[in-house]
């Protein structure tokens, strides 16, 4: 199984453990990831907020290159990049916008790529394999946290259910975990303000951590590097706003599955977390 791969900036920098775990897991599941050549940043929230054409041109270049490379399907583990690429595809269905972007890029763009997130990749190409290869069941009570970008806007992304999504929960059950029902699965953690308004981030992320911790979660499972950095690296600031400091780790779904499949903690980048992972 061969599939295109767009890691995005976070996965090469502050969230490199996500990249490491995706790559390690893909290898274990015999999925070959073909990285898009000379990819650029998707523009993230900044381009989206500052200039519409820029916010469309940056993802369009990525997808144009992937098309040129002969890829038909691309997995995008970063929820923010996934969202931007899918939204751009949708916006560029408009002939006027597509024409303008082609003019800016001076590259052909067809919009034919299938963009999927990491959960979709695992559901489509891995569910059976994962089940067969579990060697140490992930026997932990965890809270799956989806955030905003994976599920909204539902009308365009068409992924999972918008309230109370289940795809990550069922993967956790496949590896022997106990995923619980909780209240903040899709509430925003404030990652957009991770640098500019750390006070607000601490408040929003605090609500999420508190609910999961109150219900006895041993870990938060995520599929978004923005959420992970926010809930992990900002833990010091978050804990200052809480009555009781919370020390539950925030780990990627790929790391959790990797552990169940017997992949080493180092290889999965678990040592790179700020909050110690002791599972």
């Amino acid at each position, binding site marked *: 199984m061969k599939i295109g791969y767009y890691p995005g900036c976070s996965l*090469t920098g502050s969230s490199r453990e996500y990249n490491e775990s995706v790559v390690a897991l893909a290898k274990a599941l015999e999925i070959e990831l073909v990285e898009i050549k000379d990819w650029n940043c998707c523009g993230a929230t900044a381009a989206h907020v500052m200039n519409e054409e820029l916010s469309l041109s940056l993802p369009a*270049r990525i997808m144009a290159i992937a098309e040129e490379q002969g890829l038909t399907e691309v997995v995008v583990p970063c929820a923010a990049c996934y969202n931007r690429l899918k939204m751009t595809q949708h916006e560029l269905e408009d002939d006027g916008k597509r024409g303008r972007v082609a003019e800016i890029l001076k590259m052909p763009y067809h919009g034919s790529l299938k963009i999927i997130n990491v959960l979709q990749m695992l559901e489509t190409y891995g569910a059976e394999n994962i089940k067969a290869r579990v060697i140490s069941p992930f026997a932990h009570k965890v809270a799956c946290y989806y955030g905003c970008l994976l599920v909204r806007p539902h009308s365009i992304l068409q992924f999972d259910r918008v309230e109370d999504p289940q795809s990550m929960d069922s993967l956790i059950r496949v590896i022997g975990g106990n995923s619980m029902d909780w209240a903040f699965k899709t509430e925003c953690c404030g990652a957009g303000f991770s640098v500019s308004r750390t006070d607000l981030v601490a408040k929003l992320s605090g609500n999420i951590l508190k609910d999961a911790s109150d219900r006895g979660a041993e870990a938060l499972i995520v599929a978004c590097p923005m959420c992970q950095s926010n809930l992990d690296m900002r833990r010091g600031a978050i804990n200052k706003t809480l009555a009781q400091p919370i020390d539950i780790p925030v780990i990627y779904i790929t790391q959790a599955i990797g552990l169940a499949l017997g992949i080493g903690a180092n290889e999965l980048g678990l040592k790179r977390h700020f909050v110690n992972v002791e599972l």
Partner: protein
Amino acid sequence: MEKNHNISDLQLHTGVEVVRCYQCGKCSAGCVLASEMNFPPSYLMRLLQTGTKENYDKILLSNSIWLCLNCENCLGRCPMEIDIPKLMDYLRTQSVKENKLHPDSKPILAFHRSFLDSIKYTGRLYEVGLVAAFKFRTFRLAQDMAIAPVMYLKGKLHIFPEKFNDRKRMKRIFAQTIENTKTDNP
């Protein structure tokens, strides 16, 4: 109170019909930052519905448009499917254009500008450069002093930017969009 064309411009650019809002308040009820905002989303919609310049300026000058995280909870639950996040994007652009900025916008804008600068020159996000530029723009020298060294130790910070080849096209994209004075941009 004088009527203005802002609402029809807004509809033209975003496709949002403010008249459709029937003030149920479900957006405000579910907004994670409503309590921090000068005007929660439903109130903001009502201000727009009045159609007056006075209320429109009130919105541009408010912190609401800058505090919106585009998490889209409001849109996901809105019975009338009103795209408030898209509206917020537009209002932010207008706020910058008319230079009617709430003080809360400053660090947020500074971050976005630093971010875009970073990718303009390096194609990809260069986090060390971004943080340095942001600090320079906001004079928040001490922020994140505790985190950065740990990040470095954990292998999460690169001292040098990633290698990216197609810099020429990246420059062109910026020149044609955000730096193009003919298009609408802050």
